[in-house]
């Protein structure tokens, strides 16, 4: 039951991603395409590196705990 629901949900997501989003973006003018790429690109880089930052902070904690346990 859960398996069927999951496969249905993932199929719907894939179909939506394949059809809806790209067609809208392709129709944009060249400067708008450039702006979309720039804004989302810069935000994306900051977002991904922010996630790396959070994961490093977590790893620092794990590392510190391990070292304390050793001592």
């Amino acid at each position, binding site marked *: 039951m859960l398996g069927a629901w999951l496969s249905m949900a993932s199929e719907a997501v894939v179909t939506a991603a394949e059809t809806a*989003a*790209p*067609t809208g*973006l*392709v129709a*944009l003018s*060249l*400067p708008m*395409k*450039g*702006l*979309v*790429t*720039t804004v*989302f*690109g*810069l935000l*994306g*880089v*900051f*977002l*991904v*590196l*922010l*996630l*790396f*930052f959070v*994961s*490093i*902070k977590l*790893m*620092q904690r*794990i*590392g*510190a705990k*391990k*070292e304390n346990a050793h001592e």
Partner: protein
Amino acid sequence: MDVWALLKELFSGVVYMGTFEGVKTLIMFTIAGILIYLAIKKDYEPALLLPIGFGAILANLPPIIDTVTGNPAASVLGSEGFLTVLFNAGIKNELFPILIFIAVGAMIDFSPLLKEPTMIFFGAAAQFGIFATFLLALFLIPNVLPDVIAMAEGPEKQSLVLRLASAIGIIGAADGPTTLYVANHFKLTEYMAPISVAAYSYMSLVPVIQPPVIRALTTKKERTIRMTYTEQRAPRVALILFPIVVTALAGIIVPMSAPLVGSLMFGNLLRECGVLERLSKTAQNELANLVTILLGLTIGSTMVAANFLRWDTLLILGLGLVAFVFDTAGGVLFAKLINLFRKNKINPMIGAAGISAFPMSARVIQKMAKAEDPYNFILMQSISANVSGQLGSIVAGGLVITLVGLVIGW
């Protein structure tokens, strides 16, 4: 038998050099000679510039004409030439950039970054130049190169402008493999030569390009800001977890960056795991050396006169330099912005190390800091920003591929 025809065939290379194509060949030989000179005499990235220069000489040798068909036969290029074989085996399928990243990953110590994780944001800020130049290129390409764009038809025109602009923007990251990866992904084979030459030569010109930009944007007082650092290494468990977590995160959020991030982090895991020293050393030395030779030679082979001696080459080289300057400026200005809100000020020069040219950029920043104040030591912070730049440029490359792919409907 006609003796003249025999002589003409025997010395076809000499005859070729007397034609207009021969003059172009001589110009390419001169350009190749400059690259080799810079490598040997000026010591600018000799491991790359020398093979590129020699590859360019090989690629521009007069073609061997098949006497039966009249077509160029396999020499170093041609469908079965060894440089074509290398190109298909290593660049066309993106293998060489991936292998180089395994080697680079094995060379990088992420410990300084794990101890000062705030430096990671410089790796993001210094990608500003990629996107600023991308926008600039979108405006310039149709206006400066109308003939090139006119050759494409319908929606392909916009697609070509966007693909070319993204590959030019990525040059600013000073990350050769990522630049090649993006250019290759967007099927810009025809532009591969100027793009890769710009990426690799600007990488080697970090000591020339970055200092004036940094000096123009900072005061002497800012350049002498001192920062504290403790020598202790990051915990081993963190160093081992880092490459695994980063690969998983990048692979989930920006799947297009996964091949590059994955190979970089695999190399780093070889280094940090502590049980594969032999493999780590192999990746750092033999693999790095071997792939550098093949990569350089193959990039050089794309510098065929017909693809290189064009106006778009000048535009690509010019915009590549602009991207590099913008990236440096983006990092420095971001550091100055952060300083407005911080009690413990950051030396803004560190922001410039957020580009990918590792470890050259970090060294340049330390050298500049030392020139201002002989007792100022900011190398470790610069290295933190520099390794973040490696990550930032790969993520930016993956995002550009994804976003441009979406807007052009690829």
